[in-house]
């Protein structure tokens, strides 16, 4: 009879659990990838042949309020606002919310856009810090600048929502750049299916690109390897993660950098929450919950072609802080809405998306980190079958690489954004090496987020911005 000592038995159980988790992880990624491939190519076929540009002339187009919270953005704010004021869309307003900046953001705006304070009546229908003044410009009638006391991004967005005059609002960052036709593209689902309550667009990395007058005029890759790794990550996250979940009707995240919402629905659910660092994620989950609780038909979708360009962190410290914050936002949101998980009342959101986010996104980094530690311990205790382990490691790396390369291919087939083949091959090369080193680093940051969350850390961290590359720079 075969007898196992407790150590070997524990090892065997751990082995089986990690293997099972690995299969679940890779299986779900592959399924999402297949769904996304079909969804992106099908969508591409539709938008290529549909007259989406007709939205600009359509009498039934819905007007939009663009809300851009700004905090200490004096260096980039003028260019960003200029870019927002020159978008292709028939009717929209730009609301810049100066969230109590300590630098000269407000003064720069006042001077450059010839702003003047206008007396307004403010009804605080959702919570936000007091609004000090509202500025308008006679030269730029579309521009509204709100000056308020500091309260964070969620608070600034709430102030913008209160002052918004249109039925749709677009939440974005003041330092991000929208492509000229991004609004035309992103509003299509609202016209097509009136039950649409929120639409997310793709966020791409602008580091290394040439920017002129607030527009990305030449797409290129940054020379910083850390940024190129993030390029691959963004393609994977947006092109197969969000497209896949959107196709399944269970999209839980719309990036805070670029999303369009029905204003009344957001007002009905009380606006953005102030007490979480993942306010964008939390808002979308709360929308699902509200609509399903009240049995209101709705749609929340992601579109892969309306593009928002953003500046990615260029140092390990800032990147680590960003990933730590994202993970804390995830933990917080899943904790707040834990009742939705495995609850049939919430349909695919409760039965598929919530468990996926808990098992894969939330505890995934912890399991992965445990796996690394376990392997090291087992190696030193001579409890590991080295050839088998190396085979398994190769498989894990190759499957990860396959997913990343597939995202690059999907982007190339559907959108061909990068003008030069060398740029695409650089992305492929980084997709090949991403699983050795960079991935482990992100896992570590995400594991540390648990500790920070437990300590009650609600900080955003610091994002050092260098500004977009300009001609001749």
């Amino acid at each position, binding site marked *: 009879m075969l007898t196992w000592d407790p150590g070997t038995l524990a090892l065997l159980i751990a082995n089986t659990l990690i293997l099972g988790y690995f299969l679940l992880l890779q299986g779900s990624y592959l399924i999402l990838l297949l769904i996304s491939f079909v969804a992106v190519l099908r969508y591409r076929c539709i938008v290529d042949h*549909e007259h989406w540009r*007709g939205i600009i002339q359509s009498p*039934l187009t819905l007007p939009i309020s663009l809300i851009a919270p700004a905090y200490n953005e004096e260096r980039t704010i003028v260019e960003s606002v200029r870019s927002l004021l020159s978008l292709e869309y028939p009717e929209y307003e730009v609301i810049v919310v100066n969230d109590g900046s300590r630098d000269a953001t407000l003064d720069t705006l006042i001077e450059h856009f010839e702003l003047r304070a*206008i007396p307004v009546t403010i009804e605080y229908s959702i919570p936000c810090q007091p609004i000090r003044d509202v500025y*308008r410009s006679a030269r730029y*009638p579309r521009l509204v600048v709100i000056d308020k006391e500091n309260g964070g991004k969620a608070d600034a967005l709430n102030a913008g929502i209160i002052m918004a005059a249109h039925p749709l609002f677009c939440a974005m960052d003041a330092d991000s750049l929208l492509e000229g036709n991004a609004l035309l593209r992103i509003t299509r689902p609202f*016209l097509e299916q009136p039950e649409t309550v929120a639409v997310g667009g793709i966020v791409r990395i602008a580091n290394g690109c040439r920017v002129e007058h607030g527009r990305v005029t030449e797409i290129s890759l940054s020379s910083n390897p850390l940024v190129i790794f993030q390029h691959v990550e963004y393609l994977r996250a947006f092109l197969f993660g969000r497209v896949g979940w959107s196709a399944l009707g269970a999209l839980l995240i719309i990036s805070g950098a670029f999303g369009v919402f029905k204003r009344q629905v957001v007002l009905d659910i009380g606006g953005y929450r102030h007490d979480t660092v993942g306010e964008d994620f939390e808002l979308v989950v709360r929308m699902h919950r509200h609509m399903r609780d009240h049995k209101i038909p709705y749609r929340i979708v992601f579109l892969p072609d309306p593009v928002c360009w953003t500046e990615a962190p260029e140092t390990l410290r800032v990147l680590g802080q960003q990933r730590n914050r994202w993970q804390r936002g995830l933990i917080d949101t899943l904790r707040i809405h834990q009742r939705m998980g495995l609850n049939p009342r919430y349909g695919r959101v409760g039965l598929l998306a919530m468990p996926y986010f808990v098992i894969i996104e939330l505890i995934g980094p912890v399991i992965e980190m445990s796996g690394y530690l376990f392997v090291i311990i087992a190696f030193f205790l001579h409890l590991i079958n080295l050839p088998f382990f190396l*085979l398994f490691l190769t498989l894990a790396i190759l499957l990860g690489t396959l997913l990343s390369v597939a995202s690059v291919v999907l982007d190339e087939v559907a959108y061909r954004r990068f003008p030069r083949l060398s740029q695409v091959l650089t992305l*492929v090369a980084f997709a090949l090496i991403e699983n050795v080193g960079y991935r482990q680093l992100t896992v570590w940051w995400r594991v540390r987020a648990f500790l920070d969350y437990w300590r009650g850390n609600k900080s955003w961290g610091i994002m050092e911005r260098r500004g977009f590359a300009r001609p001749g720079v």
Partner: protein
Amino acid sequence: MSFSSSLIIGIIIVCCTLITAMIGFLILKRMALGVALAYSRTRDAFFEHLILHALADMEDAQRLREIAWRVYTRQWGGTPGLRPFDLQALEHSLLRAAGELRGSDRQILTDIFEEAGGLARSLRQLRSPRCCQRLAAVQKLRIMHSRGAVPELIRALSDRSRIVRHAALRALGEIGDERAYPFLLRALEDPDRWSVHRAADSAVAAGAAMTPLLLERFASLQDPQTQIIYVRLFGLLRDPAAAPQMLPLLDAPETPLRVAAINALGAIGGAESASRLRALLDDAHWEIRAAAAQTLGALMDRESAPLLERLLDDPVYLVRYSAAQTLICAGDNGQAVLRAVIETNQPHADPVARQALGELAYGLV
């Protein structure tokens, strides 16, 4: 070697093959694209040159017609300058030029396209079992404004592919042929909202010629959602003939329909509309009060000033703001009302009056 090791090796081989295949695909795709682009640029330049001359000179137009006929009928043997794949290049150049031209210039190209065999080819293509072929045909016919294709395009409105149906709808709207109007009306009631939008665009493009048909159909409509679409169209068409049918809707039970009717009447204008709208300033629904106040502003109605003054104290901000905006539009009388309100320090009315006057002073109104 154990089964699990063999399995893992198998999967590794599959992964490696897939990754290599994807990288190979990326490289080959880019290379093929480069070659095709270089070739098509040369040929496009050749045909664009011919088109430019054809627009300026009748003889050159005849020459282009002959060359086009040879290309379409594939009888290019012995014709200097023609090469394989020229059909694509010719069509591409023709479509690009026609898309940029208007009036008689475009008509020259449409005639060449139709007479040289382009119309016949497109109609054959429209019967293709392949969706992309049918779609390409519809788009060609739209850009070339081929009136000869209208019956076939009407048939394409029942195509099994949604994309082809939408493209046909757009083509019929742009061609602007009266035979298509009844079908555009039908599309306005389509459950597919995108079709409704495209049909609405086409109806607006067709202009007042559509009004009699729209009014006739509107009289028998029951669904409030469809009625709203029609009412908004009447507003956009600004045809006074529609006003008598809008007035009874001001008493409809559905608030959104009433709001749409108020806005449409505002766009159409007329003295009777203004007097009916004034009566709505006391409506129980705030949406109606706000819409009526806004519309009276758009109509530059000066008689409503005393009624609007009361609305400055309305419990709903949007109503107050709309009333203040309309008073600004009413000229000196209305602005005097706002200044008087500021002096009385009314809790609701004072801030909104200050806001409206501030916006006026700064040139925002």
